[in-house]
Each structure stands twice: as C-alpha cells, then as structure tokens.
C-alpha cells in the first residue's frame, strides 16, 4: 500500500445530527489486546499468553475548534460548532446511568468512542488548542474499531476559515471572583493563560460469554482549570474558596462563541513562582466534581 499523507486522512466526528470535520493538528489511534503470560510453578516458560480482558482501543488528537457551521442539519441552524465541547458540557451534567458513544471516523477506520478526557489551552495571541481522548470498547459483538486505513480526497478549506477558529483575542476569560482581587489595595490581576481539563469516569459492563460490553455506565466527572495571572492572593481557605468560572471562547471574527462553565468550583491550590529575568507568576487551580 502506498504511503498516505496527512492531508488525505480526515478526522470526522458524528454526534446526533451533527457531523464535524475536525481541524486536527495530530491524531493517534491505538488498540490493545489484554494478554498475560501463563506461568506455572515447577516449570519454566509459559503455557500460553492468555486473554485476561477485552480488546480495547483509544484515539487521541489535538485540534483548534471551529466555531461556525450548521449545528442542526434538520433546521439549518448555526451556532457553537465545537461538537466535543457540546458533548462534554452535556455529559458532565447528565443524570442518566446509561450513556453511548460517538462515531469517530479516521481515514477509513471507524468506531464508537466514549469521551474520556477533554482539555483546552488558551494563551494570548494564540488560537485555542484542544486535546481529546476517546476510549473505544466495542459493544456486543462489534469490535472497537473496524475498517482499513485508506486515503480520502478532501476539498480545500475555505480561506475564511481562519476567522471562525476559537481564539483568545475576543474571549472573555473569567467572570466574578477571578482574576484574583486583593482587597487591601484593590489590585486586579492580569490573566495570562487558562488550562482547562475535564475527565469522565465510565464503567463498561461486561458479561460472561461476551467479549465486548453490553452497556456503558457514566458515573462522574472531574473538572479542573489552572489559571496563570500576575497577582497572588494569600490566605487560602481551609474549606476551599468558592469561585465562579465561565469561559467564553470566541471566534477570531468575534461572531461565534462556545461556553465552558464550571459548576461551583473551589480553589484547591495557589502557587507563586518567579524565575530570574521574569515577572512573578501566580497559578491557581480550581476544581469541580460532578
């Protein structure tokens, strides 16, 4: 088979009525068979390498969100088009036990994956960068991934695309209690960067006589934001300090936005550091649990 160049391997997410071609920088797909050596006392060597778990797969990629497009194909409505952000926002507040995966297509290989980790990085003068990991377990008699690696012809992207990517230029970083305010002299800090991360905990339910799970349970999520600024607030509270966190990530043309809002986050740690030739940095971490 001829080698395939990166621009011939599209990455596509299908979620409900939405189909999004991801503007990905990189993508990595891996699969594993869970095998253990069978050793016995009184013998050297192994009888076989035997399965002790199901085959699993995972796919991770980093991308810049494109914040325009048709959100609902049925009604032709447009809006926030970062599908993965929509999945994360909906899932973390989900009250249902059962959950299901998202169809991921990567160069002719496809499978249903559960969003296990989603992070977002914002730096001044930079496009927003997201990192994502999906776990693919398969279901019933369906293997985690199927298909073969093959190239696809991708139409050239519109030049206006650059206006639609999420960017720090117009994004409202924080609201309410942050950036930190030192009450004694009413200093307000300058926010320098935001690192946001959310992890989801699932439980695939396996049953006897079947390799792949019969269902998936969504249990909880842990959300964390690490904010770098130039002021340091002393006196962290024993019970944690309540914060508000609402991040509006806007497109470069300031027309579209996606929202990340943490539910009752609490300040868990605060760090002040400085290096020679640098200004002092303060880093605070706030966390929410779902």
């Amino acid at each position, binding site marked *: 088979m001829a080698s395939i160049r990166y621009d011939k391997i599209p990455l596509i997410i299908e979620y409900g009525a939405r189909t999004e071609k991801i503007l990905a920088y990189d993508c990595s797909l891996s699969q594993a068979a869970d095998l253990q050596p*069978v*050793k016995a*006392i*009184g*013998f050297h060597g192994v009888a*076989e390498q035997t399965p002790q778990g199901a085959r699993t797969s995972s796919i991770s990629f980093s991308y810049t969100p494109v914040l325009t497009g048709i959100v609902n194909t049925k009604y032709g409505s447009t809006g926030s088009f970062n599908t993965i952000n929509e999945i994360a926002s909906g899932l973390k507040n989900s009250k249902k036990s059962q959950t299901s995966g998202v169809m991921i297509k990567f160069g002719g290989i496809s499978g249903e994956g559960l969003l296990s980790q989603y992070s977002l990085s914002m730096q001044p003068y930079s496009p927003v960068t997201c990192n994502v990991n999906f776990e693919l377990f398969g279901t019933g008699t369906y293997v985690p991934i199927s298909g073969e690696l093959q190239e696809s012809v991708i139409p050239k992207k519109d030049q206006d695309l650059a206006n639609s990517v999420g960017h720090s230029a117009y994004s409202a970083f924080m609201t309410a209690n942050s950036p930190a305010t030192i009450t004694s002299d009413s200093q307000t800090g300058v926010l320098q960067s935001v690192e946001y991360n959310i992890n989801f905990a699932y439980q695939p339910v396996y049953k*006897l006589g079947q390799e792949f799970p019969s269902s998936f349970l969504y249990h909880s999520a842990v959300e964390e934001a690490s904010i770098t600024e130039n002021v340091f607030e002393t006196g962290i509270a024993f019970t944690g300090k309540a914060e508000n966190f609402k991040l509006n990530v806007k497109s470069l043309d300031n027309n579209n936005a996606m929202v990340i809002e943490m539910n009752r986050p609490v300040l868990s740690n605060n760090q002040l550091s400085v290096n020679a030739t640098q200004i002092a940095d303060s880093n605070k971490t706030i966390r929410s649990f779902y």
Partner: protein
Amino acid sequence: MIFSAKNTKLTLNGLDIIATQCALDIATTIDPRYDAGQRHSQSYFASNGVGSSMSFSHYLTGDLDKIKEFISDQGEKIGSDQRSNEGRIISGSFGGLTFTSGYLQTYSIQFNPNSPVIANSTVVFFDDLKGEFSQTDARVSEQEILNCKNITIENLSSTGVGSINDFINASYNFSVDINPVYKAGQTLPDRIYFGRKSVSMGIEVDNPTGYLPYNGVTSKFKLNLSKHNSSTATENFSCFGVLQSRSVRTSVDDKVSHMLQILTNNPKVTSNVFGIEPRPRPVFVGAGGDDVGVPLNVL
C-alpha cells in the same frame, strides 16, 4: 538454600498441575497443660493428630479437570459392592515432599468476563510428609487455558428466579466436612469419614428484584465452557439447588450489582448416601460367659 517457584513442581496423583501458587501448611494441635495452683503452663500436650493442608490455584485447560472429579467421587459409595469408602485418595508431591492420603476439602472458581478460569483447591491430609525438598527442571507444555469469554449459561430455574438477560459474573464453591477417626494409641487416623457436602453458586445478574419466598426458589444453573473458536463444551459446572439469598448493593462510582446465591447439598445428580456400612456391634459377654444381649442395631 532458597528455591525458585519454577523449580518447585506440584504433582497430584501423578499429574503435573499448572498451578499459579501453592501453600503447604502443617500444624499440630497442642494445648498448654495447667497444674493446680499455677497460672502458667510449663508443659504442653497434643490434643489431636497432625493436620496438614495444601492449597493451590491452577488453570483449567480444555481437558476435563481431574481435581474436579473428586467432588463427585470422594466419600461416595462407589464400586459394585456399593460399600462405603474413602473415595479416591489423593497422593501428592510438592517440591519433592510427598503425602499419600489426601482428600479434597474445598474447590472454588470465580468466573469473571474475559478472564482465564482459575480453580482454587484445598487438599487435607493427615499422614506424615515424606521425602526432601528438591528441585525439578521442566519446560511447561503449550496449553490452551479456558476463558470466560467462551462461556454459556443454561438457566433452567423456576420463574421465581426472575428474568435474567445478563450474567455479569459467577462463582462456584464446593466444600465437604472431612473428619479423621483415630484409634486409641495411634497418631495417624485409622480411617476418614465424610460429613456434609455442599455446592453453592453465586451469580451476579441484571434485573434487580426483591422476590424471595421463605422456602427459597428452585434454581438450576449450568455453566458450560468451551475452547476458543469452538462451540463444544469441554467443561461444565452445575448447581441444581435452591435460591437461598439475594443481595442488591452498590457503592459510589460503581454499578448496582444483584447477586443470587444458590445452594445444593447434592453435588451428584444420582445421589448415593455416604457413610459407614453398618456392622453388628460386639455382643457383651456376661461374667459367667453367657450372652447378656444382642446388638441394638440388628434388632
């Protein structure tokens, strides 16, 4: 000298066991003797014989498990004369230390999805260990280990058990009371008699319910195991008994589990009552040499 596990072979009835672990325990039953007026003991006495046990875990391969055969044969009346017997006695060797009269006391398996099948057994014996610890040097032969992916479960229970679609995991447990009979003046048992045998099965299923009548529910479950890419069962475990308990539980960040516990005291499909073949008791002889009665058990 310290030995490695790979040079310490476990053999039972001449069969090499593909065991993952083995523990040999030998214990006396010694009690302290207290004299009148003394709070402390200065000497000890044996109150029972030496009791030894060997516990081990071994993989199940496609061939019928030889250890499992003791569950149905041991302590049963077998043979053409249907006389009581001690069943098939297990002789064994662990690293060159040998015993000649062992009996299977417990046998259990935990079945988890996609996991290899490993049985845990305990063999008790009451004779002295012979031989010296010695090393072996052998390469294990290639074998296919049974896996819970290739398991089918037959549910022949009454409707009271409820509708079951998913079997999440299962366990199989066998145990028997094994009692040595000592003659006066002997430190080794003259014979062994077997008490109650029981087989229980725990099954985690979906569909939690709370229905459980006071006299249980007739339950019949059979687990069939086959090799990879084969539909022919090469091993099976059954428990035809009574649903004894249900348990519904959960904890934070975990699923709700619904566990059924089934118990049977009849591990064999065809029941043979085990025990001692009755013999007439000796007739007491009077002082003058006359018989003073006849044995009660032959009246």
